[in-house]
């Protein structure tokens, strides 16, 4: 494949960022917005061309004997330390990167278009578009990385652009602290990622993904004899640390980076606060693309994870706990964006669990395919939900559902599209979420009944809290809207909603297994109606029915329920006090126990030494200052005395 189009895919958003960042203040809002939209549109078209070429052209470099291959379009030396250690920047095409190219550019384009209406008249409009372009560039660079170091670079770049966008309203203290929180928490996770990279590359001597994960064919032979995950395991030579093999440590540490970005349990605290950013940004970054980077990372290194059962189990456990926790918390939040944020955490955890339970011997790695499928469908319907929420917030100027209710009459387009999104995430056929979630549940049940039952329960919770949200917004009780009745958003906001709703309706029927599987061989999706699908539909419908009973009309059932739950509701409403725990650890233990003594040491010992030196020098200078009297004669006497002494000594040495 010619490298022109891939290079353009990366360069157009970067150029857009530079143009909007440097010339933005000179442009009008309209010009900047349309420039961003056109640039992203062109990128989207190019990404579609690339993905279609990869999936449908059937060229021998992409597909061989029905097996999709990893194809390196270009791989340019970037940092040349020495021969064995060269960091490259490149473009890797394989099923998941092609899929992500499509997802990112589509959502990004929708968000660009949507923002034209949503951000109308905001101060810093051009800056906003510049950051959107920067984010798109970084995310595209991340998914097409040919080596883990390039991925790390772009990983940090998406973190930085996320920081910039969360803190977009930088006059608001809450936005500033939210952006700092997001940056610090993900940074902390990236520390683990970096250590993992270093361990891995120290033992294998390479950064390249193709070296780690060279495709293994069905008969056990690899496409390239030299590169297999087995070689990676062999290169570790059975080294262990604290009872686990070093490879496990490396993989778990790398997964820790993914935990930070994807908001898995101990590191999830930044994502709900990240909702301080503009809503389209939440849709793009904190729902559809950046937060699935962790899933993408695990999927990218999946053949390596397969070598280490322990790492996969770890992922499964973390994912399962996170999914349940986030679903419970989502049932009690008031801010609609926070409900969606926790729902995002929960859904990403679904993908993680799906990856964790995937095994080649279970339906040829069904979990991997299901995870990617859910990533795709989730990106679409969650972006739809967020953009819908944005339209609602735009209309009533509040984030809380208490300010909404009965909106179905005033905002029909938003109502219908939001309903489609809710049905999709609840897993009702024929919407897309049903298909992907069904595959995930199948994979879980195949692995172990425990995981299957657990995730089915979480799926039921998902349906419940989404419809709770839906009823509270569109039914329930109508507050007093005053003279300004809420109305549907302008066309550039509605258009992405309608488009995404259509996609969410249809994309479940894609034969996804034909395109993306863990080893590139096509997999035939078949829905296990009796075993998995029917029960999960029943669970979802029951959950929706419960939500209908509780929230369709204004009543005091929810309040009673909350009272009867013996503090569980309050705890969930406060997110099970995770933030407080973090505050306790950082403020009480780290600040008081470690930072104060260090600060004292710095202030009194180190600064004291320096101050002492300065004090000595000052005293000395005060002492010797009178020597410079300005009296020329005294200077001459001193000089003469020295000269005579020198002359005398010299003469004495020569003479005697």
């Amino acid at each position: 494949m010619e490298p022109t189009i891939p290079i353009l895919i990366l360069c157009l958003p970067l150029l857009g960022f530079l143009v909007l960042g440097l010339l933005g203040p000179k442009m009008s809002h309209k010009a900047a917005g349309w420039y961003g939209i056109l640039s992203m549109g062109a990128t989207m078209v190019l990404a579609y061309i690339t993905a279609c070429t990869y999936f449908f052209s059937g060229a021998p470099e992409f597909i061989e004997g029905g097996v999709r291959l990893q194809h390196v379009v270009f791989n340019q030396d970037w940092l040349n330390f020495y021969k064995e250690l060269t960091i490259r920047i490149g473009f890797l095409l394989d099923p998941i990167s092609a899929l992500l190219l499509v997802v990112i550019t589509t959502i990004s384009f929708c968000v660009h278009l949507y923002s034209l209406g949503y951000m109308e008249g905001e101060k810093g409009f051009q800056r906003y578009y510049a950051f959107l372009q920067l984010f798109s560039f970084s995310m595209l660079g991340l998914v097409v990385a040919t080596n883990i170091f390039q991925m790390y670079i772009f990983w940090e770049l998406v973190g930085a652009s996320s920081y910039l966008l969360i803190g977009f309203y930088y006059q608001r203290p809450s936005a500033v602290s939210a952006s700092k929180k997001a940056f610090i928490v993900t940074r902390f996770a990236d520390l683990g990622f970096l250590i993992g990279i270093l361990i891995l590359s120290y033992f294998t001597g390479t950064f390249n993904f193709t070296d780690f994960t060279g495709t293994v064919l069905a008969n056990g032979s690899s496409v390239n004899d030299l590169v297999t995950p087995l070689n990676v395991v062999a290169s570790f030579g059975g080294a262990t640390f604290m009872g686990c093999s070093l490879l496990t440590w490396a993989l778990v540490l790398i997964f820790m980076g993914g935990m930070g970005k994807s908001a898995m349990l101990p590191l999830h605290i930044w994502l709900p606060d990240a909702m301080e950013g503009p809503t389209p940004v939440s849709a793009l970054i904190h729902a559809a693309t950046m937060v699935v980077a962790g899933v993408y990372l695990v999927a990218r290194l999946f053949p390596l994870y397969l070598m280490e059962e322990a790492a996969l189990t770890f992922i499964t456990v973390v994912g399962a706990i996170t999914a349940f926790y986030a679903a419970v918390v989502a049932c009690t939040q008031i801010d609609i964006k926070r409900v969606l944020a926790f729902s995002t955490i929960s859904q990403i955890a679904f993908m993680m669990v799906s990856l964790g339970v995937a095994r080649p011997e279970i339906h040829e790695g069904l979990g991997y395919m299901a995870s990617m499928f859910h990533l795709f469908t989730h990106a679409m319907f969650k972006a739809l939900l967020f953009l819908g929420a944005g339209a609602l917030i735009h209309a009533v100027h509040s984030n809380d559902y208490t300010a909404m209710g009965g909106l179905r009459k005033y905002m029909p387009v938003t109502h219908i599209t939001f309903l489609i999104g809710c049905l999709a995430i609840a897993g009702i056929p024929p919407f897309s979420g049903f298909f992907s979630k069904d595959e995930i549940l199948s994979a879980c049940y195949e692995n172990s009944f425990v995981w299957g039952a657990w995730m089915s329960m979480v799926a039921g919770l998902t349906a419940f809290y989404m419809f709770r949200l839906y009823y509270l917004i569109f039914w329930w009780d109508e507050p007093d809207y005053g003279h300004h009745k809420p109305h549907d958003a302008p066309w550039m906001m509605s258009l992405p909603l309608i488009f995404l709703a259509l996609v969410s309706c249809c994309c479940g029927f894609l034969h996804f297994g034909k395109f993306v599987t863990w080893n590139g061989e096509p997999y035939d999706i078949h829905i296990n109606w009796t075993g998995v699908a029917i029960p999960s539909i029943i669970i979802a419908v029951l959950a929706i029915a419960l939500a209908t009973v509780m929230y369709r009309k204004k009543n005091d059932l929810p309040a009673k329920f909350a009272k009867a739950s013996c503090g569980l509701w309050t705890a969930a409403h406060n997110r099970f006090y995770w933030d407080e725990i973090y505050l306790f650890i950082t403020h009480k233990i780290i600040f008081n126990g470690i930072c104060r003594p260090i600060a004292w040491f710095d202030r009194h010992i180190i600064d004291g030494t320096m101050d002492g030196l300065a004090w000595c020098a000052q005293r000395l200078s005060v002492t010797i200052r009178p020597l410079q009297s300005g009296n020329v004669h005294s200077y001459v006497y001193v000089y003469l005395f020295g000269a005579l002494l020198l002359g005398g000594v010299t003469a004495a040495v020569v003479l005697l």
Partner: protein
Amino acid sequence: MEILYAIVALAIIIFSVLTVTTRKILRSATYLLFTLFAAAIVYFMMDYEFLGAVQIAVYAGGIVVLFVFSILLTTHPGSNSEKLANRHVWWGILAAVATAAVTGWALLSRCADLFSSKPEMADYTMQDLGNAMLSTGHGGYLLPFEAVSVLLLACIIGAVVVARKR
């Protein structure tokens, strides 16, 4: 020759002592002029005619005139003969004598050379001097020549800037 030497040596000693002891500054400048003339004669006696000429032209003709001008400029019209006050005279004498002692002692360490007599010297013409000034390498002084010319230029500009009326 010996007579000439005696006159010159005496002139140098007497006039330099007078230069620093006289009470009137204009006289001091005049005695300096005489001393400089005596030094010029020494140069002539050393067969350095050009150097002697430069000494007379630059010192006698330039610097002393400069001194006289500045003295006249800085003397109050009423008291045309301002008394030169000397102070710490004994300290000054002590310093001078000490210097003379140390220097004399140092000179004595080269006894053999001190009593050498004047050897013959090849005729040193103006042309040789010019070549030396404008050539490089051994015996060439182009670089210091240029440095001095730059110094003089800087000095002219500096003097103009400093003395200019604001």
